[in-house]
């Protein structure tokens, strides 16, 4: 549970709000983050941040106001002021045309299962040593340079409201390492990514091996410029996670669905919208994801299927959208979900997947994806790291930058096979507050008739 000093201050603030007759929600966030950033095979930057944030929200009938503070919480006076500001904000606000749903912690949560003190305090020296081993092993092989980053940290989230006496708390650690190897002359880039929940989950040797698996094909062959048109594509974990994010964004937000802006808006639950090999669940119980147990409306988060074997099952409603459209909130008052793309029956390893693919493009990573047309689920993005041309079941050449412009429904209807093995793909961003997020995705996804819309002469 949260440190007693701050917890007591927050409980006192809740009691004070009740005495004032205020409906108030308090959400406290504390992070201890550190990051090393690599560039040109050296550490370019090493950072450490210790930050506390408090969000206070007050609801009065159809009015809502809030106040967010980034500062150390040291006294009750600070909390009282934050509450008064939120209350004033609420009073001066506009009435909505619907009744907002006030937050209440559904059941008490005190979850520290995802916390590893060794990962919280991993030193920049230890990180630097691991990276140095990788660089030392591979740099002499060619005109290579390394860049990347390794972010680790601990996050605490604590939520309570005046609606009841429950508290929801969770503390976890997370880490993400990305190492990029670039050939300075030939300009290609390879990347290895690792997601971690605890210290010591990977070694320098594993990373070296992952690079070594790709290096010969890149070292021995010139880049290949593929043709514009429909092609068979073998997607890798990062690309699959990008497709899942776009899919959820374009098709499974209740508001877009209700307003007819989602590519699912013309469908009813029960319709078959994707291949039966596609199952998408927001599942905080999946072992690959970081598993957020509650949301910031107090809902207990449980597995929430969006698509089951290609059948459209649900869309998500945050409390605002639920209130507006007369639905029940689904536990999605938060930015970081626990998305899972269900595994299939395809072989676990990439080599067998390539044999199965026959002639295809291997695109494990999509760069700068965007949804130009959410109503039809049309997305665009370019291949980047680790992309290969596959001929007769074998990788034969690195692939030049190739742009895919297609629709999510097309791609997810043209699934040929799905790996039986899952991979944790870190999708955290470090904008503003630390918010660990990972997806569980199959190690690969083979799709037919994917539209390549542009090809470059470079990587």
């Amino acid at each position, binding site marked *: 549970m949260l440190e007693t000093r701050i917890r007591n201050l927050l409980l006192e603030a809740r009691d004070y709000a009740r005495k004032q007759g205020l409906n108030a929600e308090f959400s406290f966030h504390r992070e201890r983050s550190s990051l*090393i950033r690599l560039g040109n095979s*050296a550490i370019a930057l090493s*950072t450490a941040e210790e930050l506390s944030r408090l969000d206070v929200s007050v609801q009065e009938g159809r009015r809502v106001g809030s106040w967010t503070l980034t500062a150390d919480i040291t006294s009750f006076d600070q909390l009282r002021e934050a509450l008064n500001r939120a209350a004033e*904000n609420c009073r001066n606000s*506009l009435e909505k045309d*619907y009744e907002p749903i006030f937050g209440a912690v559904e059941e008490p949560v005190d979850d520290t299962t995802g916390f590893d003190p060794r990962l919280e305090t991993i030193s920049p020296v230890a990180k630097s040593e691991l990276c140095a081993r990788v660089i030392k092993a591979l740099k002499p092989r060619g005109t290579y340079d390394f860049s990347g980053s390794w972010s680790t940290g601990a996050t605490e989230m604590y939520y309570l409201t005046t609606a009841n006496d429950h508290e929801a708390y969770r503390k976890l650690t997370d880490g993400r390492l990305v190492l990029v190897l670039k050939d300075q002359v030939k300009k290609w880039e390879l990347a290895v990514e690792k997601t971690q929940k605890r210290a010591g989950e990977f070694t320098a040797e594993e990373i070296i091996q992952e690079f070594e698996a790709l290096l010969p094909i890149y070292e021995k062959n010139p880049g290949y410029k593929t043709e514009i048109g429909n092609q068979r594509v073998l997607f890798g974990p990062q690309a699959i996670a990008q497709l899942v994010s776009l899919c959820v964004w374009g098709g499974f937000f209740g508001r877009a669905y209700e307003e007819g802006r989602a590519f699912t*808006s013309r469908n009813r639950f029960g319709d078959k919208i994707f291949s039966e090999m596609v199952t998408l669940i927001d599942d905080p119980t999946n072992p690959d994801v970081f598993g957020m147990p509650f949301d910031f409306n107090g809902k207990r988060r449980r597995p929430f299927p969006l698509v089951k074997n290609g059948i459209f099952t649900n869309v998500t409603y945050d409390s605002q959208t639920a209130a507006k459209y007369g639905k029940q909130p689904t536990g999605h008052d938060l930015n970081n979900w626990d998305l899972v793309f269900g595994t299939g029956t395809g072989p676990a390893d990439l080599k067998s997947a390539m044999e199965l693919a026959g002639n295809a493009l291997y695109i494990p990573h999509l760069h700068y994806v965007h949804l130009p047309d959410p109503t039809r689920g049309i997305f665009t993005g370019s291949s980047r790291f680790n992309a290969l041309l596959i001929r007769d079941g074998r990788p034969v050449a690195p692939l030049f930058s190739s742009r895919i412009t297609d629709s999510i429904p097309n791609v997810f209807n043209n699934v040929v096979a799905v790996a039986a093995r899952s991979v944790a793909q870190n999708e955290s961003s470090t904008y503003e507050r630390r918010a660990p997020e990972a997806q569980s995705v199959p190690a690969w996804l083979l799709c037919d008739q994917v539209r390549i819309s542009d090809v470059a002469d470079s990587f």
Partner: protein
Amino acid sequence: MNICSTVEKTVRTQLKRMLEAGCSFADVRFYDEDRTERLVLYDGNLEVNYQRWEKGIGVRVLKNGAIGFAATADLNAIPECFDRALANAEAAAQLLGFPKDMGSAQPVRGKYQPRFQQDPFAVPLPEKLSLLKRVDEKLKDNTVEHRMVSAHFQKRRIFYYNSEGTEIERWVLNTFAGMTVMARDKDGKAQRRSYELDSDGTGTRGFEWLANPQAFEVHTERIKRELGEIVAAETLPPGRRDVILLPGQGHLQVHETIGHPLELDRILGYELSFAGGSHVKPEMIGTLRYGSEKLNAKVMVVENSPGTFGYDDEGTPQYEYYLIKNGILVNVLCCRLDLGEANTKAGRVVVARSGASARAAGFYKTPIDRMTNVCIEWGNDGTLEDIIRATENGVILDMPVSWSIGSNREHFHFGCEIAWEVRDGRITRVFKNPTYQGHTLEFYNSLDMVGDRSTWRLFQVANCGKGEPNQIMEVGHGVPVMRFRNVLTGEGR
């Protein structure tokens, strides 16, 4: 300086201690007050009513050629924050590449405050909301299915100190606002038309700007009408044609394909694993033909812009300089830290001094190379009407809907809200779903008409994302109307 004296005293002592500990440079940013307010009306409902207040310090030290950064919101733990920054620098020095070097600079003592009449945070919330509500009411129409009106205010007081004796107090004050109307076309596709608060680069930055009916409210009727035209229009047929970019689209084109690739940290490969690299290499500075003779890209100190802030986060005063002069790349966006590396890699001096581009998004973020006001100088090819008259087969494009850019910014694909077809010197009809794509250098080399001062507008970008840890920054782009020849437009399947 009227900074809380204990913080100031502690900071000065700690800066001295860092020099004694072997650091060649150290600096501190103390955010005494950092306020943000966001208001969003969606279909008349106030769906975002967000106020944030931040306070804390960020410390950067340079030791043995390596940079360490630490930040804290706990003002009782300032010495510990310096210790963490020092430990970070010492750890980074263990895997050292090109040693970082701040060069030397004369100490600066300065103050900066943007021009404004009404502090948005002093304006009562009901007054702000009644303005937004009034705009929202005006956006109602039979063709409009959904409406959004938003305002976003920022106010910061930042004290900067470094070990060279520089001490600066500066205020940041920004007003952003936008409005969007949405409707589905006959194919069921959501279409939109929007307006973002822009200016001719002059004027004041406070609430008075937004409250001036001629600046903001005046656009409601136009965007409703144009949405109606988009919804009734056909999709832009694919093909090669001339593209006339209005500043609403031109500013993003410049942001993505001139601004980002000219950030020195990208050029040197420090952003590779995240945002990407650049097609520009240090040795190309001074020689690369980036565009046609008509292309003049310049960092400007614009009176009214979020990219104007007096001094950057290394204490360098802002000044004006060309990035691209008559089509030739002559400079890049840089701070003090990487000049030595760029010049060594180029084998000659390609960047002589800091471009005052070091900017951090908050006290808990470290300064990185950033855009400020990356502008295109206006030209002498007349007004928009003149450019239309001179165009046989083209489209006029405005406001981004989607964008996707190659990792080295060498190629791009943009979707826009609206296209007006130009045939034989006049506008003939509106098209929906316009897109265009190209390769950066080829595209800028096809620039053949640059509009005059009457076409030049300063657009504010409130959400430029970059860096790790990620940072969101506010920048400005002043651009005229520009015509590019023979561009690939539309989507063919």
